[in-house]
């Protein structure tokens, strides 16, 4: 205990952790939560009811952890995947049958993605039925809706990457739905596909959207979403 106390008083420790461990006083306990990036999602004082499992079912956090799993497994999958025709399909098959633990990794990514759509949707229902979208939380509800759309877009862009028959026709149908946008539909479809039909450019475009653009936007908005929970007065 004495050694720990000595360690906590060293200059290096004090430079990393700004507060003492929450063991001696109520002030220390409050300060840990107040100053911690990961814990200050809750206000300093929280009603016991609001942190009970049956209150939120932890759906937001489950969605976030699934997103973390998706980032980690996704980065690993990127190491064996080339977004080109015909490499893409062969790489996907190689990940399943040649790469060590590849099937496990791919299935983790796949099932987490399916599950994330499901939990994000349930999260939205929970917030709706608890009335937690009401002022002053209406802006956070809008961010949440954008996050739901981003989740769906990530699912959609990821669907093309294995480049099998399912991918091809799903994206054909999706791109033709885009074509129904008035006036600029055909142009958007052309930009999305990088051509008039699905080809090499489409695969690269969907790959960049799936691996760079959409996750970055997602991460920024998730940070804003969490920050707003705290600023809007905690969970409700």
């Amino acid at each position, binding site marked *: 205990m004495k050694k720990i106390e000595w360690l906590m008083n060293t200059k290096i420790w004090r430079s990393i952790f700004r507060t003492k461990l929450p063991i001696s006083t109520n002030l220390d306990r409050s300060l840990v939560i107040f100053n911690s990036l990961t814990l200050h999602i809750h206000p300093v004082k929280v009603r016991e009811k609001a942190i009970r499992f049956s209150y939120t079912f932890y759906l937001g956090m489950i969605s976030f952890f699934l997103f973390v799993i998706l980032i980690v497994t996704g980065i690993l999958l990127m190491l064996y995947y080339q977004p080109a025709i015909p490499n893409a399909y062969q790489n996907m098959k190689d990940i399943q049958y040649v790469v060590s633990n590849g099937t496990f990794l791919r299935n983790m990514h796949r099932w987490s993605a399916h599950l994330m759509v499901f939990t994000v949707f349930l999260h939205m229902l929970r917030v709706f039925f608890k009335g937690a979208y009401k002022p002053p939380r209406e802006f956070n509800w809008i961010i949440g809706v954008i996050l739901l759309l981003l989740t769906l877009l990530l699912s959609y862009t990821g669907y093309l990457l294995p480049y099998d028959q399912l991918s091809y*026709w799903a994206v*054909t*149908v999706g*791109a*033709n*739905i885009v074509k129904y946008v008035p006036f600029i539909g055909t142009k958007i479809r*052309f*930009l999305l596909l*990088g*051509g*008039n*039909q699905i*080809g*090499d*450019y489409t695969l690269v475009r969907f790959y960049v959207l799936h691996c760079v653009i959409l996750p970055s936007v997602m991460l920024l908005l998730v940070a804003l979403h969490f920050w707003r929970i705290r600023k809007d007065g905690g969970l409700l």
Partner: protein
Amino acid sequence: MEDKDKINNHNDSAKVITRRDFFNKIGTTATGVVLLGSLGVTLDFLSPNVLLEIPKEFKIGPLENIQPDSVIDNAEHHVFIFREHPGSFYAVSSICTHLGCNTKWNPAGIEGHPEGVIACPCHGSIFDKKGNVLHGPAPRSLDRFLVRVENDKLVINTDEIVSEDKMIVKV
């Protein structure tokens, strides 16, 4: 003292542009021009100039190799080429007008339509052999392409879409 008064008077009528206002305006305008320009340049960049897609124009033939009352399903260009008995040809797109799936020629027809039909596997649209919608959800008939005869071959360009009464070429 006199100068100062002058400037103040002018400021009141908001007519004089001070040095600060001038540079602020120049700076804001320049930033705006650069932002708009880069947006345009980026949009231009995103739209590819060279596409490695198959050519729109293709040839089918020679004519005597096409059986009367037959259908050629050209999968590469997604076109059905029909020859009707006396020697009239026409070409209908095989891409469904609903959401772009590949349709199939079904010579035996289906219930209620004993003659041959074009059917889409994705959402169940059905067309007659001229491309007219028999059953939704397809919102409009299949595209018909202009057919020309050159050197005993049919020349079809999928960019030249024509109406039903102009699609048939007689030889």
